[in-house]
């Protein structure tokens, strides 16, 4: 009995220590302290190969099985894709010409270059969010591949997030669906601006959109280029719901993300 109560007391002591440790470790000054950053960096670098292998094993197994079942349609798909490539090559040629003109004119006017003029670094996801509260993923490239913090991450559907932390071999990406994420955006139909915030579950929420803005359901929402992180013109999503009240100075706008976050795979970091 005495032994049991001694053990319980020990556990209560441990829990008090945990609470104290949590308070200390979450202090911004402690988080930024060099020893904490170095220890975290070492842990991330040591664990990186395990994550890479685990992700590769799963992708290999599921990818291999999928390929086996999809072999039947490969010939027809190959022909269709070849035709698509020829068409896209022609379009790229045309767009490159327009892009070059645009770049030259922007330089003449003293404007910043658009993001499609930037270099895209292809990356793969090696770790997905492990809790439902944070939208943080890990990608397989880091400082050694010239990835830097606060750069945009996109895929073929639109804006995915921004690089949050960079280690030697990997980087953490904050998804635009995370509640800490804030992206300066505008309605490409009306040019009305706002800040798109993430949400734990559900659509993005646009704050500070003027009540006078004539936003409509279905309007494309794109990055405004007001920050150095997100270049102008990347599609964020489409307006899903509007709540406008006469007495409010801002209206509430919900946006469905353009990107399907449950099927993220190949991504691109927009190099600065």
């Amino acid at each position, binding site marked *: 009995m005495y032994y049991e109560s001694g053990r319980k007391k020990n556990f209560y002591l441990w*829990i008090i220590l*945990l609470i104290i440790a949590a308070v200390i470790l979450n202090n911004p000054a402690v988080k930024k302290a060099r020893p904490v950053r170095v220890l975290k960096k070492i842990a*991330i670098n040591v664990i990186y190969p395990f994550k890479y292998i685990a992700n590769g094993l799963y992708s290999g197994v599921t990818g291999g099985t999928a390929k086996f079942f999809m072999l039947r349609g490969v010939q027809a798909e190959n022909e269709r894709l070849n035709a698509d490539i020829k068409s896209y090559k022609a379009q790229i040629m045309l767009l490159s010409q327009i892009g070059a003109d645009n770049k030259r004119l922007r330089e003449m006017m003293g404007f910043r270059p658009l993001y499609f003029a930037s270099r895209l670094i292809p990356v793969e996801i090696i770790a997905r969010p*492990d*809790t*439902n509260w944070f939208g943080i993923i890990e990608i397989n490239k880091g400082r050694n591949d010239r990835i830097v913090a606060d750069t945009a991450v996109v895929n073929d559907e639109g804006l995915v997030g921004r690089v949050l932390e960079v280690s030697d071999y990997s980087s953490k990406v904050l998804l635009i669906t995370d509640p800490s994420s804030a992206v300066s955006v505008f309605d490409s139909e009306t040019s009305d601006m706002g800040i798109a915030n993430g*949400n734990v*579950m559900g659509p993005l929420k646009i704050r500070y959109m003027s009540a006078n803005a004539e936003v409509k359901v279905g309007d494309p929402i794109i990055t405004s280029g007001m920050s150095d992180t997100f270049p102008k013109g990347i599609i964020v999503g489409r307006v899903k719901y509007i709540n406008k009240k006469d007495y409010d100075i801002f209206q509430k706008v919900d946006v469905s993300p353009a990107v399907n976050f449950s099927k993220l795979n190949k991504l691109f970091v927009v190099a600065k």
Partner: protein
Amino acid sequence: MKIFRLGVFIFLVYLLQVAVVSRFAIFSVRPDLMLVVITLIAVTQGVERGFASGFLGGLMQDVLGGMYFINFLTKGLLGFLVGTFKESIFGSEESVAVTAVLVATVTEFVLQVLILSLFFDKPVATPLSLFLLLVISSVFNCAIAPILYPLIRASAPYFAEE
């Protein structure tokens, strides 16, 4: 030595969570494999192993993937609470394991909402979203529990206190 084995096991669970389990989301809600495993360890092996696995698993999540240091606190606390309740109230049947996972999911949800909203100005979510998140994650976690329970029970001799 056995605590080292427990650490390796929790690390494998972490890898499984971030590389495989997190891909399976319904309405952006993912099952919390780490929470389920910690709860089942606490149910089958008692308060010390529950607390140790919760602390280790939470710390891995915080250091390797998180934004704040909160999982080591909430998961360590859960391992302790479930282990304590198990010793005084719970039996050891599978239904008890599912109930423990449900209680642990709800408790961790409440703890995390409180900590995130009081100290970090998070989460930004409507009450309906939070309710749906709780319901879906509870269903997810409780569905995994009976599958993992025999495995965790069978592995008890490898991690049990010496």
